C-alpha cells in the first residue's frame, strides 16, 4: 500500500463504522475526533478493523498515534507496506 492508499484505507474503515459521517474532506493534520463524531468505541472499532482486514496489531499504548490521518499514515506506513488495500464502504 502506498501512503495515499493508507489514507483511503483509513477513510474506508471510518466510513464503514460511522456511515453517517462524510469522510472525503477530512484534513490530514487535524484530530479526527475534532472533524467528525468519533468516541472511544469508534477508535476501538478502527483498531479491530485494522486487525481484521490487514492483520495489523495496534497495542493500546499506541492508540494516540492514530488521532490524525497523518498520524495513521506515519504509524501504519511500515506495517501496511506489504498489504493490499481492502475496500468495503467506499467501493464503486
Amino acid at each position, binding site marked *: 500500500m502506498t501512503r495515499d492508499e493508507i489514507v483511503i484505507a483509513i477513510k474506508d474503515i471510518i466510513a464503514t*463504522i460511522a456511515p453517517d459521517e462524510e469522510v472525503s474532506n477530512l484534513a490530514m493534520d487535524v484530530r479526527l475526533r475534532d472533524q467528525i463524531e468519533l468516541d472511544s*468505541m469508534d477508535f*476501538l*472499532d478502527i*483498531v*479491530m478493523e485494522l*486487525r*481484521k482486514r490487514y*492483520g495489523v*496489531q495496534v497495542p493500546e499504548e499506541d492508540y494516540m498515534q492514530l488521532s490524525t490521518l497523518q498520524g495513521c499514515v506515519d504509524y501504519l506506513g511500515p506495517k501496511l507496506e506489504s498489504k493490499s488495500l481492502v475496500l468495503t464502504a467506499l467501493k464503486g
Partner: protein
Amino acid sequence: MSDERRYYRGSTDGKKPRTSDPLAKARGEYDLIVIGSGLAGMTAANVLGSLGHKVALLEQHYNFGGMATWFKRSGGHVFDVSLHGFPVGMVKTCRRYWSPEIASRIVQLDGIRFDNPQFHLDTTFTREDFTEKLVSQFGAERSTVEGFFDYLRGLNYYDDPRDTVADCFERFFPGRNDIHRLLLEPIAYANGSTMADPAIAYGIVFSNFMSKGVYTFTGGTDWLVAKMKDELRRNGVELFNNVQVERITVENGRATGVVAHGRQLRARAVLSNANIKRTILDLVGREHFAPEFAREVEAVRLNNSSTQVYIGIREGCSVPWITDLLFTSTREQFDSPALCDFRGQSRTFSFYYPKVRPGSERFAIVSSTNANFADWAKLDDATYVQEKARLIEETLRELERYVPNIREISDHIEAATPRTFEFYTQHVQGASFGTKWEGLRPSMELSSHIEGLYHSGSVGIIMSGWLGAANYGVITANKVDLFLRAAAQTAAGGR
C-alpha cells in the same frame, strides 16, 4: 449438586427442569468459551464469532439475556424485567455489533415523569430539557448548569475517582436537595449509583442519557433476544442453555476451559460474564491468584439488588396514557441510601403500552425499587411471603394515585425480591448492577494474572446498564481477539 433440588416448576421461584444433557452437542474444544449470556457475554460472543473464532456460549438459565430478560404468565401476560431504557448510543452499538434490523427497532421513550413532594415534572431527559428545567423551574444559574454538564462530560477513566457524586453536586448546587434528587434518582435506578460513588461512574452514564434521552426496543426483550440468538448462530456461535459451569480450569497459569455437568470442555480462552468475585473466588479459585490480588477482589463491593412488582392488565382492559417511565416518591426529602430501604417510599413505574409489542393489545406495569439483599435474605419463609404481599400492596396503593382502577383492571400480580434475582441470575447477593467502581480494575487486569482468562460481567457501575454492558463486551472481545490471533500465530510458527 442436586439438580432435583435446584430446579422446580410452578412456584414464583421456579426454573424449568432439565430433561436432557444440555451439552450433548458440544464439541470437546473451542477457541473461546463464554460463561453467561448477559448482554456483555452475548455481544462479545457475537463479535468474536463474526471474526471467525469458534465460540461456545454457556448459560445457566434456559433463557439467554441475563438481566435483559422477560417472562410469560398465563392470561397472555409478558413481563420485561429491565427493558426501560437505555441511551441513544445503543443504536450504534446494535448496528455495529449486532444487526441493522435490531438497531432499527430502537425508539425513544415518549415520556418520563418525576412526581415527589419536592417537584413534579415531565421531561425528555435531555441536556437541553434538563437545563431548561433547572433554570426555569429550579432557579439555577444557566452558567452553573452548563458548567455541571461540561464537567461530567469531561470526566474520563484516568481522573481521580475520589471526587464523589456528593462532592460534585455540592460544588455546583450546594444544599439543593431537590436538584440532587432530580439528578441522581433516575441514574440510581439505571445503574445503582449513590451519592458516595465516584462522580465519574455517575457522570459517564448520566452524560450518555443526557445526549439524546431514553430509548427502548420495540418488540420487547423476547423479540430482541430471539434476534440476537439468530445472529449468534449466523456467526457460528454454538449456544447452550441450562448449563451450570462448575469451574474454570487453569493449568500452568493458563485458562484451559471449563467443567460443566462433570464434563471438561477445552478452550484456548475463557471469557467469564459472571460476577467478577464469583469468577475469581469461586469459578477459578483464589489459590490460582497472588494473595494480594485475591484480597483486592474480595474487597470489591457489590451494587444493590432490586425488588420488582409485575402487574398484568386483563385482556380487553387498558391503561390511559400517563408516561413511559415514572420516578415517584412520597419521601419529603431526597436521601440516596433510602432508595434501598426495605419499606421504601420511592419507586419507578415502567408502563408498557401496546406500542412496546406492536400487534399486541396488552398493557403491563412493572414497578422497581432498589433494595439490599441482606434485608430480604434474613427473613424466614413465612415472613418472606408476608413481606412480598406487603410490597405488592404498597405498590398498588402507590399506583392507585395514577391508575385509580388498577385493582379492577389487573389480573396477574407478582413480586420479585433480591432473593428472586439471586436465584435466577446467580448474581452474588442478587446484585442488579454488578459491582462498585473498584471492580473495574481486576476485571480489566484478569488476563495478566491468568493467561487466556477474560472477564466482561457488570463492573464499576459504568458497565452496568445495557449500553455499558454491551460495549464492555466489545472492549473485552478486542482483547480476546488479539490473544487468540497471537496464539494462532505462535502455534503456526511452531510447526
